[in-house]
């Protein structure tokens, strides 16, 4: 009864909602799409922003009087386009605008106002491809995407990346100018280019996620939001293109995110995977990740994100650390190593081999990597070696390796973990 009443109350409330509130709701929901469409027409993000603001202002006056149009997004885009044409004419008069924007004015004014809804939706993907264009510095791609696609404010982005708003604003301004002046197009790349261009979009999303995921405790509130933003962005890309690696990356982030609550103590100390309280892992996120991995694998067009997600899923499936299927993890690392033959992947595989076959075979593999001269300055290589030496009972060698790792790492949480291990070894 309470439920039925609740629904009725909600419906009535909605019907009685003042038009002003409905309009605000539409602005909130439509701004991302309308902005992306205007950006595509104008190829100028500042001009698009101004045009959308003017369209909102006109709507705020006109809609309460004449009613909300049947397709508010299309209305906002059309109105925004007229506003932009006016702005270009105004600025052209005072010679403040570059004439190639003026040259396009004709085309902007002429374009058919009625576009299919799917095409408007694709404009968001076009905007993402423009912000993640390889001609833009990666350091700029990341904040530009957060600002223009996710709609975060410059202050929010600066806080999340632990830098000043002035620095962030400068990067965003440079990115917008590059898009406008260098003629970076708002297009979905052609089939031949698509895999590499999509890869650069995915790497921007993963950078955003990791920036939020590797947060230290003090800043964890704002930084955790970055991870959520990355997940939202990836969901949007997946909606627009059903690519196996988009599924793989989304799965990988969801699986990582499922352990967010358990990977740090309240004091900010790292809790290793094997010591985490698995009952507190978010089962809903894990299930969604697993489904995505299955869909990606079934497509047979998967790549390294999917394989990394699959490795993460094997951990998620083990009820306790001892139940982990290390044989499967080694097999997945074999696949990953073929897709991504890097020393870091090789190191992770060596650790998995040690978990399956014992410390000595793992140590041999790590020794081979270090003898080649790879990863000599990579703290995790020495930390892993130290841990395996400890298990093999070679205490003195273990202490030396962990001390090397401690000297190389700059992360405070990592340093604390290494010091704790060293203290335990030295006490024995």
């Amino acid at each position: 009864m309470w439920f039925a009443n609740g629904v009725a109350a909600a419906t009535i409330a909605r019907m009685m909602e003042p038009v002003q509130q409905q309009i605000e709701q539409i602005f909130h929901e439509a701004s991302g799409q309308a902005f992306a469409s205007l950006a595509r027409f104008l190829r100028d993000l500042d001009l698009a922003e101004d045009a959308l603001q003017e369209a909102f202002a006109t709507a705020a006056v006109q809609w309460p009087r004449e009613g909300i149009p049947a397709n508010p997004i299309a209305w906002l885009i059309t109105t925004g386009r007229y506003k932009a044409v006016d702005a270009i004419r105004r600025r052209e008069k005072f010679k403040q605008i570059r004439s190639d924007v003026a040259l396009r004015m004709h085309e902007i004014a002429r374009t058919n106002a009625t576009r299919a809804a799917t095409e408007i939706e694709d404009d968001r993907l076009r905007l993402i491809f423009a912000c993640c264009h390889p001609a833009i510095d990666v350091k700029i791609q990341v904040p530009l995407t957060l600002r223009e696609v996710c709609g975060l404010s410059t202050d929010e982005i600066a806080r999340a990346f632990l830098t000043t708003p002035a620095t962030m604003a400068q990067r965003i301004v440079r990115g917008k100018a590059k898009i406008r002046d260098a003629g970076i197009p708002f297009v979905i790349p052609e089939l031949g280019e698509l895999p590499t261009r999509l890869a650069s979009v995915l790497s921007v999303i993963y950078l955003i996620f990791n920036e939020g995921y590797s947060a230290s405790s003090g800043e964890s509130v704002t930084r955790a939001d970055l991870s959520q933003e990355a997940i939202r962005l990836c969901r949007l890309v997946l909606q627009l293109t059903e690519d196996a690696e988009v599924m793989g990356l989304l799965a990988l982030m969801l699986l990582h995110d499922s352990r967010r609550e358990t990977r740090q103590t309240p004091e900010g100390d790292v809790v290793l995977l094997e010591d985490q309280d698995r009952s507190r892992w978010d089962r809903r996120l894990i299930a969604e990740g697993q489904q995505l991995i299955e869909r990606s694998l079934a497509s047979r067009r998967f790549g390294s994100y999917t394989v990394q997600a699959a490795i993460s899923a094997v951990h998620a499936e083990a009820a306790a650390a001892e139940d982990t299927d290390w044989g499967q993890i080694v097999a997945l690392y074999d696949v990953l190593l073929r897709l991504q033959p890097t020393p870091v992947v090789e190191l992770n595989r060596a650790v998995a081999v040690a978990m399956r076959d014992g410390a000595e075979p793992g140590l041999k593999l790590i020794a081979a990597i270090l003898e080649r001269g790879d990863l000599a300055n990579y703290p995790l290589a020495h930390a892993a070696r130290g841990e395996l030496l400890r298990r093999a009972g070679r205490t003195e060698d273990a202490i030396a390796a962990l001390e090397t790792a401690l000297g190389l790492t700059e992360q405070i949480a990592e340093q604390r973990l290494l010091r704790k291990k060293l203290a335990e070894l030295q006490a024995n």
Partner: protein
Amino acid sequence: MKYMLLIYGAEDSWTEDEREGCMRESMAICKELAAEGKWIASSPLHPVDTATSVRVREGRRQITDGPFAETTEQLGGYYIIDVEDLDEAIAIAGRLPPAHKGTVEIRPIYPLPEPSGSCYDHE
């Protein structure tokens, strides 16, 4: 949009045969671009030891023998093209033979307000 493609490379990195091959291939690309209405101008440049630099300081003109900056890779030629957007310019730059040895820098050309001054108008 109009772009200038600046060809940079080490001048001594080409054999005579390679230079001729590069010239032939470049001419073919120019012809193709011209047929599509995308070519405005292009030319190789004589080596940097033919360069002369001019500066006017405090009303006095100074002339020096040599390029603006001594670098290992020198400006060796240019193209001016009129294409849709940066992606098309990148695709063309990637087809130019010197891209395989040196670097092709793409610079958008700043358009002057209408009516454009004739000295900058390449058409």
